[in-house]
Structures are given as structure tokens and as C-alpha cells.
């Protein structure tokens, strides 16, 4: 990364930024100017309209959402994003067109919502009138000169006799009009002078008055009116929905407009980071060192002054990080990005991680069939979807993982677990897949093997850490921290060597003296470790530091190495589950003694369903556990994270991608 500073004349600022956008390799940052900087008079920021662009983008996206609702796009799963030339991402007219279309669609949607609101209000009214449809009094009737008329409801738990009985002594009348599950709807008629007594009696039976507003005419007439309105609303809604559907032809313009506005947002935001005077503008940013020549070509066409400098050490925390990768290690970007980028100036973990990640993944999946599926899927997607950037990295990882899975599958003789062996056995053939080892039969050896791989993995990490310490001039730290552990490990390996024959079930002897030598080396390593831990402490601190070191090393390393047993666990689990599915699938054929049409069909169905499930689970599980081994165990040994990702000024490609 190099730091770019550039002063351009105001009139060319926009054009220059657009050219940088097309180049796509400059991250624009806010200049930090000290008091004594000669550029410190460049202070003014300008409003370039990023806010306006954002509201434009929001409007277009909302319109697209409305279109998705009424006229969903039919796009094949495997069709790539359409390509557009760079100019279309900056085309003002295209954006205007998209905004017009968005306005139309949003207006139609607004009308549609208003109609829907009216519709639900009408429906609620209809609902509230339904109990009264047998009442043949007009609803505006509130009584006569001498009598009051009340409409209301009594809970269904109160029987009609009870309700009528409460009023009969008062010489008032209660008539039930309708009853549903919760309430009975009643009309109460009484003389005005006994109002208080009647109301008190009605309270006793939990009467609640119902007011139907200022409706006139009978309930039946009003319901008919409601229904007529509802029909009109439905027609109106249909008309509006059709009108929105008719706009579906605008989708490509809207999608291009959304990316156009998105690109505009990036441009405006970058422009707002510039510092201005009336005549010139100052731009600061970061550029990958290898792009210098391209920049020069662009800048040659403008009246500007510029410099590119290497960042100072104290600027490192602010320098964005871009991983330099080749096609192979690029696949691991997904893992590194998900965890955290390395700090600027430290080690790029991808090349170190790639072989282990892919090997471990293959070991855990270990199946020829699954490997073939992954390879095929990756190849098809790469050909059809033409993914770029992170998506491409993901599919590359699938491809490499698939190849590794295939190779390990050949070594362990797994093809959809044991389906070939099982079918051969059914047909009386003695053919069995060749295998070098199998997690099921040699589980102990595979377990130890996993941990040995783990040791290799961890030591690679330590070697990197040692190398970095030596490079930074901290050789002593390296010797006491990594070095003492290596001595210790060598001791442990030598000590454990005489147990090898029994583990491999082979008949050869390893002299016991090697074990004794291992013991001695272990003690030396331990002493180094203790001394190293207490090196920087004084007095009693030395003792606590030493104990701390023992505890951390013992538990930390023990845990780290044991953690690699998951390689064997996942290898075995995938195989076992697959095997059981094969077994179940072959059951009907086994019962018949050979394949019949029915049993073959049952086999295919169960086989496909079972292995789809097993494959899905396995690919997820293996990925996650491989990730864990890298991020927790491996990175723990050397990785310094905290890098800021490099975000160059570039096109927004949510719906369209740039051609070429």
C-alpha cells in the first residue's frame, strides 16, 4: 500500500474522481492535516449531494420491492448478473428514467395501500353490523318521545331468562336479536323515567352498550352498502395491481438505476472527503503499490500535483489491507475475511492455511461421490454464473475441497459411504473397494494420525511466529517461547516412540534408550520454558510466571492437539451415517434376495434422500470445524489480526456487473 496525496483544480475534480472510480484501485480517506502542515489551509469540506443520492437509491429499491411483490422477476438460479459498460453506471439520463419509473410505481403502490386501508375499515364495519341484520328498526332510531331504545351485548354466559328476568319487574323489555359464541345481542326498551333503575339492573347482567355511529337505515341496508363498497375496492385494487404489473418492463431500468445511484453515492461520499479552497481540492488515499503506473497514466491527463509515499510505521494501524493472492490461495479469502484481516505489515495467512485447510476438509469428508458432486457443482457454477470476487473465491474453495475429498475418498475406499461394497455383497460378488485405511476399522490409528497432523499444523504456525520474531530482532523471545516448546515436543515424541509398534500392531522394537533420551530432552525443554517465562519478571514474580507458563502450555497444547481429533470424528461420522442410509435403502432388495423393480425404486429414493441430507450436513460440518481448527488453533500460534479491509472507490454491482 502507498499513501496518495493529490491536489487537483476544482473544475476537474469530478472528472478525476470518475476516472479513479473506473480504475477501482484507490481508497479515498479524509486527510489528517497537522497545524504546521503546509496544506492545513485546505480545510473546507463541501456537500456533494450524497444524501440526495441515498434517498434516490432508497426510492428505486422500494420501487423494486413493490415490483417483486406484484410481478416477481423470473430469473434462473444459474444465470449471472447481466453485464453493462462502465458508462451506464454513471449515466445521468438512465438514473432520471429510473427515478421517474420509481415515482410512478410508488404512487400506484401508495394508492393501493390507501384502498386497502379503506377496505379493511369497511370490512370491520360490515363485521360489526352483522349481528344486527335481523333488527328491522333503522339504526338512527334512539327511542320515542317517552321511551329510550338501547342496543347492546350481554355475555353469552348470562342466560336469556336471567337477562329478561332482571328487567321484567321494572316493566322494561329486552329482546334478543342474535347470539354468537361470546355474546348475545339485545335491544332494550324502557320508559325514560325509569332509566336509572334499568341501567343499574343492566349492569347486574354485564350489559354493555353498543354504538353504531351515525348510520341511517336498517343494518341490512348498511351491510348491502358495505358489500357494494368492498366490491368496488376489490376492483380498484385489481386495477392498481395491474397497473403496477404493467410497469414490470421497467425492471431492467430500475435495477440499472439502483446501481447507478449506488455508484453515485460512492462518488459523492469520496468527493465529500476532499478538502477544498475555491480553486483547488486535496485528495488523500491509499493505493496498492503495484498500481502506480496506472495512476500515472490517469493523472497525466489532468492539471494536478501528486505524490505516492510508503506509509510510516506509526501509520500502520490506519493502512488498509489487501491480501495479495494467486488463484490458489485466493480461495481462502473467505475464511480470512470472516475471521479478521491480518494487521498491516504482518503475515498473510492464506498461503500457509490453504494446504492445511484443503487437506483437512478432504480428510473429514473423504468420499469419492461427495467429492465428485462438489467438483461438478463448482465447475458448473463457474461456467454458468461467472462469479467474481468473494463468490468466485467461495466456489474455488468448493472445487479444491472437492478434489481433496475425492482423493481422500480414494484412500479410504468410500463412494457414497459403502454403497458399491454393499451392492456387490447383495449380488454375491466378492469385489470390495480398495482402501489404504478406514476410520471405522483403524479408528485408533486414524485418531493418532489426526493429532499428528495437528502437531504439524500447530508447528507451522509456531515456525511463522518464530520467523517473525527473528525478523523483528526478538530472537531471544523466539528461542524461549517457540524454541523451548520445540525441545519439549521433541522430547515427548522420542519418549513416546517405543510405543509405536504396539500402536501399529507391527512386530519391531525401538530401543528403550530412545525413550530415556526423550525424557532428558523433555526436562531440558521444560527448564528452558520455565526460565523463559520468568525472564522478564523479578523476585516472586518469577515463580508465578513459571507456574503460569507450565499451566498454560500444558492445558493449551493438550487442548489444541486433542482438538484435531475432530478430523477423525467427522470422517467416521459421515461414513457411518451414509452407511446406515445405504443399509436401509438396500433392505427391500435384501429381503427379496435381489433387485426387483420395486426394491430398486425404493433404493434410489432412500439413497438420494439420505445422501442429500448427509452431504449437506457434512459439507457444513466439515467447513465449520476446519474453520475452527484454522482460526482457533492455527491462528492462535502466530496470527495478528485487526487489519482494516481495503475498500477502493468502485462501482456498485448489486444488480448489474461491469463488463470486462
Amino acid at each position, binding site marked *: 500500500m502507498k499513501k496518495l496525496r493529490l491536489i487537483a483544480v476544482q473544475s476537474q475534480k469530478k472528472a478525476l474522481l470518475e476516472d479513479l472510480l473506473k480504475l477501482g484501485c484507490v481508497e479515498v480517506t479524509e486527510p489528517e492535516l497537522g497545524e504546521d502542515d503546509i496544506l492545513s489551509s485546505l480545510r473546507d469540506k463541501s456537500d456533494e449531494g450524497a444524501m440526495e443520492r441515498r434517498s434516490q437509491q432508497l426510492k428505486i429499491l422500494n420501487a423494486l420491492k413493490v415490483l417483486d411483490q406484484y410481478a416477481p422477476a423470473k430469473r434462473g438460479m444459474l444465470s449471472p448478473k447481466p453485464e453493462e459498460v462502465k458508462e451506464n453506471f454513471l449515466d445521468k439520463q438512465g438514473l432520471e428514467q429510473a427515478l421517474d419509473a420509481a415515482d410512478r410505481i410508488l404512487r400506484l403502490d401508495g394508492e393501493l395501500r390507501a384502498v386497502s386501508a379503506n377496505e379493511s375499515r369497511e370490512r370491520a364495519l360490515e363485521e360489526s353490523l352483522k349481528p344486527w341484520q335481523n333488527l328491522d328498526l333503522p339504526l338512527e332510531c334512539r327511542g320515542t318521545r317517552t321511551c329510550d331504545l338501547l342496543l347492546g351485548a350481554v355475555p353469552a354466559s348470562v342466560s336469556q331468562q336471567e337477562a329478561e328476568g332482571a328487567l321484567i319487574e321494572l316493566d322494561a323489555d329486552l329482546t334478543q336479536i342474535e347470539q354468537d359464541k361470546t355474546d348475545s345481542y339485545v335491544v332494550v326498551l324502557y320508559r325514560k323515567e325509569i332509566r336509572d333503575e334499568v341501567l343499574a339492573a343492566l349492569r347486574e347482567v354485564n350489559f354493555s352498550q353498543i354504538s353504531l355511529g351515525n348510520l341511517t337505515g336498517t343494518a341490512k341496508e348498511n351491510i348491502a352498502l358495505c358489500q357494494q363498497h368492498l366490491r368496488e375496492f376489490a376492483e380498484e385494487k385489481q386495477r392498481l395491481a395491474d397497473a403496477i404489473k404493467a410497469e414490470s418492463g421497467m425492471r431492467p431500468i430500475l435495477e440499472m438505476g439502483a446501481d447507478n445511484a449506488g455508484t453515485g453515492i460512492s462518488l459523492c461520499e469520496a468527493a465529500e472527503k476532499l478538502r477544498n479552497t475555491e480553486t483547488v481540492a486535496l485528495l488523500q488515499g491509499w493505493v496498492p503499490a503495484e498500481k502506480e503506473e496506472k495512476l500515472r497514466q490517469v493523472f497525466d491527463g489532468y492539471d494536478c500535483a501528486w505524490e505516492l509515499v510508503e506509509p510510516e510505521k506509526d501509520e500502520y494501524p490506519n493502512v488498509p489491507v489487501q491480501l495479495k493472492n494467486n488463484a490458489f490461495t485466493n480461495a481462502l479469502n473467505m475464511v480470512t475475511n470472516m475471521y479478521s484481516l491480518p494487521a498491516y505489515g504482518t503475515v498473510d495467512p492464506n498461503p500457509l492455511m490453504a494446504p492445511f485447510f484443503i487437506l483437512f476438509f478432504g480428510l473429514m469428508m473423504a468420499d469419492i461421490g461427495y467429492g465428485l458432486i462438489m467438483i461438478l457443482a463448482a465447475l458448473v457454477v463457474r461456467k454458468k454464473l461467472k462469479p467474481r470476487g468473494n463468490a468466485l473465491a467461495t466456489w474455488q474453495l468448493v472445487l479444491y475441497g472437492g478434489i481433496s475429498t475425492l482423493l481422500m475418498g480414494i484412500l479410504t475406499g468410500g463412494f457414497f459411504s459403502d454403497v458399491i461394497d454393499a451392492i456387490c455383497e447383495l449380488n454375491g460378488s466378492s469385489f470390495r473397494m480398495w482402501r489404504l485405511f478406514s476410520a*471405522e476399522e483403524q*479408528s485408533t490409528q486414524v485418531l493418532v494420525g489426526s493429532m499428528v497432523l495437528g502437531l504439524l499444523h500447530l508447528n507451522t504456525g509456531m515456525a511463522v511466529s518464530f520467523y517473525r520474531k527473528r525478523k523483528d530482532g526478538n530472537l531471544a523471545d523466539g528461542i524461549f517461547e517457540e524454541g523451548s516448546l520445540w525441545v519439549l515436543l521433541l522430547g515427548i515424541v522420542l519418549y513416546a516412540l517405543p510405543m509405536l509398534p504396539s500402536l501399529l500392531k507391527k512386530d519391531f522394537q525401538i530401543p528403550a534408550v530412545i525413550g530415556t533420551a526423550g525424557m532428558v530432552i523433555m526436562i531440558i525443554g521444560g527448564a528452558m520454558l520455565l526460565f523463559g517465562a520468568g525472564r522478564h519478571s523479578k523476585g516472586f514474580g518469577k515463580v508465578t510466571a513459571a507456574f503460569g507458563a507450565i499451566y498454560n502450555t500444558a492445558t493449551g497444547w493438550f487442548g489444541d492437539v486433542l482438538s484435531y481429533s*475432530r478430523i477423525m*470424528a*467427522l470422517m*467416521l*461420522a459421515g461414513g*457411518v*451415517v451414509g452407511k*446406515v442410509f445405504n*443399509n*436401509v435403502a438396500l433392505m427391500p432388495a435384501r429381503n427379496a434376495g435381489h433387485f426387483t423393480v420395486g426394491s430398486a425404486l425404493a433404493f434410489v429414493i432412500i439413497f438420494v434422500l439420505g445422501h442429500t*441430507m448427509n452431504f449437506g*450436513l457434512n459439507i*457444513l*460440518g466439515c467447513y*465449520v*470445524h476446519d*474453520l*475452527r481448527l484454522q482460526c482457533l488453533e492455527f491462528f492462535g500460534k502466530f496470527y495478528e489480526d485487526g487489519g482494516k479491509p481495503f475498500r477502493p472507490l468502485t462501482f456498485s454491482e448489486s444488480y448489474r456487473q461491469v463488463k470486462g
Partner: protein
Amino acid sequence: MEFLNAIGGGAFALLGAAMAAALACVGSAKGTGITGEAGAGLVSEDPSKSGKVMILQVIPGTQGLYGFVIFFLAFTKISAHLGTMSVLQGMQIFGACLPIALGGLLSAIAQGRVAAASINILAKKPDDWSKGMIMCIVVEFYAILCLLASFLMLNAITL
């Protein structure tokens, strides 16, 4: 001992196989149930996420599958020896079935909770939903270990 002999080894073995399938399936039913409830809420707001909700929902379903795997292996092993098995052998099968029975039951419920919480991620930060999936898979590992423990033990028993 006489009492146990009267029951017979086969009964214990069957009990173990039954527990492996039943408890693990109960766990998965609860786990997928918890996730389904949370997921239905999200789908009611945004039906287009139903595919992802379904993926999250099936994750706690695997324990039931593992339970069934052990049941199947145990059952094919014992079905021919049900009448003749000794109490000792029956108890061995029973013990071998325990890890996936208990581990499956509890891990599926725990995983169901994580999956249900991940539905929130899917609702609020749809781009990061795969992180929720990863959290679910962390719980899955313990069910896999239980499956392996049961499997290795079953393999070691000879009838």
C-alpha cells in the same frame, strides 16, 4: 441376579436401542419445534426467507437421525439374539446406546435454541445469517461425539 435373568438380556438391549431412537428423536422434535415457532413468525413478515428458515429449522433435526442410526445398528446386531442374549450382553448394548440417547436429547434442544436465536439474525441482518448457522454447527459437534461414542462401543460388543 435371578430377577435380572428372569427379565433376560434381550430386554435390556431393546430398551437401550429404543432409548437411543426415542430420546434423540424427542430432542430433535423439541429443537426443530422451537426453531419452527420462531421461524413461522419471521416467515409471516417476509415469506421470501422461508428457505433459509427451513435450513435453520432442520439443523436440530440431525440428532434424531443419529439416534436412529444407533438404533438401527444396535437392532440389526441384536435382532437374531434377542432370546439367547445374556444379561451382561444386554446391559452392554444398553450402555452403548446411552451417549446418543442423552446427548442427542439435550444437544438437540440446546441447538434448537441457538437456531431459534439465529432466526433473529436472519430477520435483522439477513447477510450474516450464515454466522448463526455456524453457531448451530458448534452444538452439533457434541451430538456427533455422542454418535461416535455409541458407535464405537456398539462395534466393540460381540454377541
